[in-house]
């Protein structure tokens, strides 16, 4: 009886966490460089249930008899990032950049290096190339990229030329799977440095979110039903407990 309650409760808990992830994926369907999260549901390890040997048995023989297994519900094992390529949207913005391999390296105000596929860049007041948050976009040697006046051309290898003069080279690096940690919706951090990659940079494009709207919404509905089903079971179990605790053995006048 009580075990059943926990099984329904953990399933509801898992459904709720899953909804958080799906809602976030849907909300960021238009965020450049967003990588969706997928959740893998897993059951708790089955527990062995046992009964104690009957009381009159000899002392040395008081072992537990295993009589079967019981499941204890499900939980979300982990949220994994789906690094699949998002759609390339042409924007004609001179400083809208996308890359089909690796990540752009950008530097936050406290010196933290973030890696991102969001190439919505612009110049700041000093002419430095920055993200929409004002984080510096890093060059291949970790330097800031200062861009004078003039038309900008970015090569597929990330070489930047302004008014025909070289202005720097973007740091585009790739990582082994599992080396990146999510740090916000379109940003990642890593404890290890990446390996430089070349040949994937596109100018005048943004890589849009890789959220798959049909899949997210379908899953959202099925997870909602799972939640409701388990809520119903919980309510039934509650009703049964009510009967057991309140009705059995009741002395009626």
């Amino acid at each position, binding site marked *: 009886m009580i075990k059943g309650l926990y099984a329904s409760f953990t399933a509801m808990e898992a459904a709720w966490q899953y909804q958080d992830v799906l809602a976030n994926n849907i909300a960021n369907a238009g*965020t450049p460089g967003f990588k969706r999260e997928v959740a893998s549901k897993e059951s708790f390890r089955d527990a062995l249930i046992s009964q104690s040997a009957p009381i009159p048995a000899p002392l040395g023989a008081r072992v537990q008899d295993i009589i079967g297994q019981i499941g204890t519900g499900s939980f979300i094992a982990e949220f994994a990032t789906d690094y699949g390529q998002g759609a390339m949207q042409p*924007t004609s913005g001179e400083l809208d950049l996308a890359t089909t391999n690796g990540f752009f390296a950008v530097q936050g105000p406290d010196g933290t290096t973030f890696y*991102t596929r969001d190439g*919505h860049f612009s110049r700041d007041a000093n002419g430095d190339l920055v993200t929409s948050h004002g984080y510096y976009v890093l060059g291949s040697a970790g330097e800031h990229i200062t861009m004078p*006046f003039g038309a900008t051309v970015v090569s597929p290898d990330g070489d930047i030329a302004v008014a025909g003069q070289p202005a720097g080279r973007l740091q585009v690096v790739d990582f082994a799977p599992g080396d990146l940690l999510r740090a916000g919706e379109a940003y990642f951090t890593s404890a290890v440095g990446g390996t430089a990659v070349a040949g994937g940079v596109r100018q005048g494009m943004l890589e849009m979110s890789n959220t798959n709207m049909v899949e997210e919404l379908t899953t959202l509905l099925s997870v909602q039903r799972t939640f409701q089903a388990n809520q119903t079971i919980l*309510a039934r179990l509650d009703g049964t407990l009510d009967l057991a605790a309140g009705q059995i053995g009741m002395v009626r006048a």
Partner: protein
Amino acid sequence: MTTIMGAAASALSHYERVMDVTGHNLANVNTTGFKRSRALSEGVPLTGVAAGQGRMGVGQTTTDLDIRVGPALLSQHRLSFAIQDDAFMRIVGFDGNIRYTRFGQLDIDSAGNLTDLQGRLLLPPIQLPAGATNPSVDASGNVLAMDAAGEPVIVGRISLARFVNPLGLEPLGEGLYGEGLNSGAIQVGEAGDASFAPFIPMALEGSNVQIAEEFTNMILAQRAYQASAQTFKIGDQMLEAATNLTR
């Protein structure tokens, strides 16, 4: 507990903003010298957040100016010109501050000064000599006129300015822009010199809004809004189911 509804609500307000911007662009599809804006959602970089936390939906919406050059439209006015690069004409606002505009049509006030259509003076000012007639603008930004003897003379040259970061300019309405915190250093020059492109005389720069692009954005924003509203509703239903656990 209410991440679902928080994330959905952030997306709803973002797409409202996208619709605002799209509506503004479409309303100005025929406004001479208009520059469209673009609203994008942005992920916010976070540090020191445990795995599985910080799913906040749309972190922020940024709106930036699209400074692509619009098409040059023929104009019958001899004092009109279309700027062909990212430069701005400099004029003096009524409050005395320097303003920047792409709207290349000039007028002459009673004192013979060249002004914009509302009567703001150019910077530096250009004044027609007494008796001069038939003013016009050429591709290099020279203002030409006939003097009293009927000889063509150059009376001045229109000055242009360009910014390190034109996206950082502050739109002030009426096609005017002011320097923003982020617009950066200014490069001053004249059309056809050094890095400044020559004007197209007797033309005006049309709006750079493209109807197909705006409608595509509008449809996408509307569907994304619907999906977010649906997500919000599902979050609400789940909360309701959870609160109905005990009756």
